């Protein structure tokens, strides 16, 4: 018997852990106050004093990346939760009970699910305006269909299985069957969807903030930082690198873990 390390999983978890650590620590401690400006320290390259350098206001990029990471985590988490909770709810109910409501909801759902998430989110934000909470609402809505679809198709499969028939024979009520018998069985699928959804949520949040339709100033956000940094690409390329690589580490870590779990 040989033992082989699962490098993908280890690296994946390590990356997530690193960003998570930055985000969590960032909530309580940052090397410099996030918004503290310093005229004398504008656009400094990375150094021991400023690990990732400073931006055009002399603010410490490392501190801002930490804070930005927590914002990203927070938003992505909320988005996925909104999507997953509502999506699971509608998906499970419509699949289990069927009927015309199922038909209508699925029509709507299919149309929505066909749209790339950023595009739909742009449409929503166009209506409700940018901002952290609006973004969560917009992306949350956008993320519902994918969960609905996954849960629905899984429940459709499960409800035809003999164990559900068995439960019915025992006299179990529909809701009991749904909650205690079927839902535990879609947990594995839901887990993967949550991971994939989280990765998408991080990417979407960053994209929206980059477009200026997400987190608004002065709240630091990795996407926004990148759009600001783009203007300094010639004289301060590290500015773009820090938030970009942080997003990448998070999404890549999630991707690697998801791939291993599938």
């Amino acid at each position: 018997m040989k033992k082989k390390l699962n490098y993908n999983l280890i690296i994946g978890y390590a990356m997530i852990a690193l960003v998570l650590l930055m985000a969590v620590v960032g909530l309580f401690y940052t090397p410099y106050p996030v918004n503290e400006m310093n005229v004398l320290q504008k656009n400094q390259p990375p150094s021991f004093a400023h690990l990732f350098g400073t931006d055009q206001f002399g603010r410490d990029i490392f501190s801002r990346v930490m804070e930005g990471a927590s914002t990203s985590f927070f938003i992505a988490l909320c988005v996925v939760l909104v999507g997953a909770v509502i999506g699971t709810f509608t998906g499970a109910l419509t699949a289990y009970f069927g009927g015309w409501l199922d038909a209508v909801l699925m029509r709507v759902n299919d149309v929505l699910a066909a749209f790339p998430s950023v595009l739909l989110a742009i449409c929503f934000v166009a209506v409700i305006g940018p901002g952290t909470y609006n973004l969560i609402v917009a992306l949350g809505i956008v993320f519902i269909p994918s969960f609905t679809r996954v849960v629905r198709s899984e429940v459709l499969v499960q409800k035809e299985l003999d164990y559900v028939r068995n439960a019915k024979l025992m006299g179990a009520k529909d809701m009991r069957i749904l909650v205690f018998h079927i839902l535990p069985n879609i947990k594995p699928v839901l887990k993967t969807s949550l991971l994939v959804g989280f990765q998408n949520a991080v990417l979407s949040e960053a994209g929206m903030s980059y477009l200026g339709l997400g987190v608004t100033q002065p709240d630091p956000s990795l996407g926004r930082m990148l759009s600001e940094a783009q203007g300094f690409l010639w004289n301060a390329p590290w500015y773009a690198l820090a938030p970009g690589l942080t997003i990448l580490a998070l999404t890549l870590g999630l991707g690697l873990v998801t791939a291993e779990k599938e």
Partner: protein
Amino acid sequence: MPLLDIKNLKISFQVKKDTDGFFTTIGEQEVVHGIDLYVEKGQILGLVGESGSGKSVSSLSILKLLPEDAKITADKMEFDDIELLSQTEAQWQALRGDRISMVFQEPMTSLNPVLTIEKQVEEGLLLHEEEKYKDNKELRRERVLAVLEEAGLSDPEELLKKYPHQLSGGMRQRVMIAIAMINRPELLIADEPTTALDAATQEIILDLLKYYCETYKTSILFISHDLSLVARLCDRVLVLKNGKVVERGTKEDIFYRPKQEYTKKLMAAATGKQLAGVSVTNAVPLLQLKNATIEYREKTFFGKEKINTAVKNVSFELYKGEVLGLVGESGSGKSTISKALTGLLPLTKGELIRAEGTGTPRMVFQDPYGSLNPAKKIGWILEEPLKIQGGYTKEERKRLVMEALKEVELEEGHAKRYVRELSGGQRQRVAIAAALIQKPEIVILDEPVSALDVTVQGQILELLYRLKEEHGISYLFVSHDMNVIRRVCDRVIVLYQGEIVEMGTTTDVFEHPEHPYTKELLRNNMAVH
């Protein structure tokens, strides 16, 4: 000089195990531990064994069709004096489909779903006699039509442009055989070629194999779990168990003078010990189905209704303490009736009457894995019906669960396991325990042993019999397997296309079948005797 001569064949696989997420443990597992076999020219060798015996793996190794991580070693593996194991990949390719061919169990998946039959049949010609056939479409087609016709396909022209899914199971398997035979191979390996087919078609395929053997002196290596099939077809038989040869000999040796315990057990399971015999007279029926008709309605997109009649005008009674067999092929309406009896499906016409004090029948399904919630532990699964029923304290429920486990000869520790951690037989025991825990009067057994190996089948049947005797339960035993039905049923109902074509005591039906369909069923199943 045998055509195929194998000495001390060993096959092992790499096994990956995800132990704790971060580590993958890779180990080697030997599944075939030194098998010797030979096939003479023009002879049919039967390879018999239950699942996990190594019969399929061994046969695949002859054509090197095993996955890449398989390690094959043998002292000798000669085909017509060619040492197979030292062949290069190109040499293997030249042998495959030309001198040695294979037919597989599942013709649907074994054919390429998106290529026409013609493309798939003619490919053998193009691969092995390219110069001759490449630019000669007429010649190619002529050969294809001939080989299809020989395989018993009546209208081969019609078939050429069709796709596998447009054919019936039997036709597909004939196409598979045609593909295998197009280059007149010297050796044909048939791996459970009839298992996926219904009884009538099985017979035709066996005849076809016999025909090739006799006409072209093709040697056949016939692999099956079904002793009765092997008995009818093969000259010599090898019995395998857990990757080792248990017994070998001529057909007569194995069937009439088996030496090994295991062979005897296999034979016993195939023929069956009689478990039925309680004659029921004058009892009040627990359950009555009167003139039941069941239709499925499908609404199409434009609102038209499509009506599918699954069961037509069926009436019967189930008495206390009896085992009533329900026999028929898939699509005969067996499952529909059992669903209707449990109330999962409404009757379109007719009525269902249960005697007073009789609860809803419980069910045991064919596939215990699907019928037991895979996300829950056994203890939870057994406790659930009691919870739903209500009226028990937690301690009482636990006690009842433990009793039920004991009843089906499982241990208390099993309560803490998941379904996937149990063997097939154990799962079915759990399913039975779950069905019985509420002490029902009637249990519907829907093909309860079909998914199990024959030796396990016997154990489960005996368990069911004992439980019936002890608790006075009535069974409705649904099956397509006449052997099993004969062993356990008191009375039998034969279903054909949704209608009852024959009903009577087991003895009557088996000894004096009246309906031609019943006769056909019996002929195919009972050939050993």
